[in-house]
């Protein structure tokens, strides 16, 4: 009986210690990754992932990159000049305690170079975001090719 109750308790309590995710929210240790999205991309092209990262913990967390399909995702920053658009790999970005970091088009993104398959709207995709030493599994919304934002951008969770 005691064992059963204990098991039940653990099962019920488990979400508090593990990641929780809505359809598009990944969370752990005070770190949340929400509204992960990417525009539709053809096989072989680079895919850019955008998201909002919230750090409600008491310590600064470093965003370093991610992983998808067994491949590394690079943190890249946008620049624009006479030579045109460029994405430069960044070693990492701090998310201060109590602050947010937005990865948005033509500013910051996680880049998956040469995706091994077509990313089409409506398809299922999950990536890992590496922030603050955590590997947060996040569901990705794949938008239309010219999309400029997540369908739920601006919503509170």
């Amino acid at each position, binding site marked *: 009986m005691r064992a059963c109750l204990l098991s039940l308790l653990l099962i019920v309590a488990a979400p508090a210690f593990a990641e929780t995710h809505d359809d598009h929210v990944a969370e752990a240790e005070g770190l949340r990754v929400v509204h992960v999205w990417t525009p539709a991309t053809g096989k072989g092209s680079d895919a850019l992932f955008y998201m909002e990262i919230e750090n409600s913990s008491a310590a600064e967390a470093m965003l370093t990159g991610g992983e998808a399909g067994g491949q590394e995702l690079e943190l890249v920053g946008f620049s624009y000049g006479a030579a045109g658009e460029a994405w430069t790999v960044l070693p990492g970005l701090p998310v201060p305690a109590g602050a947010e970091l*937005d990865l948005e088009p033509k500013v910051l993104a996680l880049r998956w170079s040469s995706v091994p398959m077509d990313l089409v709207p409506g398809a299922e995709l999950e990536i890992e975001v590496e922030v603050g030493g955590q590997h947060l599994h996040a569901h990705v919304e794949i938008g239309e090719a010219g999309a400029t934002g997540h369908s739920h951008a601006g919503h509170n969770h």
Partner: protein
Amino acid sequence: MAELWAALPNAAQDLLLALALVAPGLLAGALVLRGLRPLPLVGAMLRRFAFVNALFVALIAVSVGLGVGLLAQERGLRQGSARAAEKFDLIVAAPGSEVTVMLAAVYLQPSDMALVTGPQYAEIAGAEGVAFAAPIAFGDSFQGAPVVGTTADFVTHLAGPLAEGRVFATSEEAVAGAFAPVAVGGSFTPAHGHGPMAEGDAHEGSAYTVTGRMAPTGSPWDRALLVPVEGVWEVHGLANGHAPDDLRIGPPFVPEMMPGTPAVLVHAAELWGNYALKSRFTRSDLMAFFPGTVLSQLHGLMRDVRSAMSLMAVLTQVLVTLSVLIGLMILVRLIARSLALLRAIGAPLRFVFAVVWAYSAALILSGAGLGLALGWGAARAISAAVTARTDVLVTANLGWPEAHLVAGFISLTLFMALLPAWLAVRRPLLTDLRT
């Protein structure tokens, strides 16, 4: 194959594409002319109808020039405006329109806007990773040239070592842009405001002395007069950001003594620092953005316009090509008697075919070459006009997009020129001989 292509340098890809575009037409020509020598004869025939031929060449040249000039001009404008914004890493301002602030701070097209306060500036300048934070305080002008208050760090960051003289050291000194209307050693009194409504006597009694001149930047800053931000505040009768007994200029400022500034240019010590600072200062009371991002978005909006214009240029070329084709068929009638003579004295049909094709090819290639030159010239002229008007250095040079356009046009028309040649050899020999 796709991987091999992706691994090639851009220049190699462009070259291969140009060759691939022009290859069909050239291949057709090589097959037509194989083993034959029609060119001396073609030259004689071209001279006979010099005026008509010149008209054809001009028609082709204008259509090619239109497409070439359009592409080159648009790219020059896009690159010029992007180059002008390259030095502006991160701009922090009061919340509002990013485009408005960018136009004001980067392109010196000022508007009324709320100010970043002294305490806010102190927070920005003191943030971790900031190499410097330069106020950009516009609002005054002299003979149409903007007078902008800023710091010595900004001057050096924007234009590098001065072309002449030294940077300002007091609040009554100034540095002139490369083409500003005041020489080193000269003085000026700023007018309040810009344009025809500027109040020339608003700051009477105040004067700046120009101590140095910047090297050209290719931006509207080349016409500007840069003064210490303290000078702008003092000229407007405000506190100058420092304690009364502090005679120096430049940061750090006393937050309570700092009247505020419309924009702050932030330069981080590390590249990644700009992104972190952008995130930090995007909040309810401040706005931080990358001018490059905003400009890229604006250029993206213009891309649809550019596509429509490119389509029009291509359509024009197709129409001209069809016109040239019809014209060539008419032209064949002009030279039909000569072609009949050739056939009568034993020229093979393939030779007569080659004569007509080579005739057409001479017109097409001459027109395309002239069109390239025309388009380049037109783009240069328009760029010079735009540069003079906006102070943004726009240079239009021929690039691979133009080469691809011309290569495709040449190939298509050389291929289509096979048709009049084929029709020419099907004409009734005796009828033409008797004409």
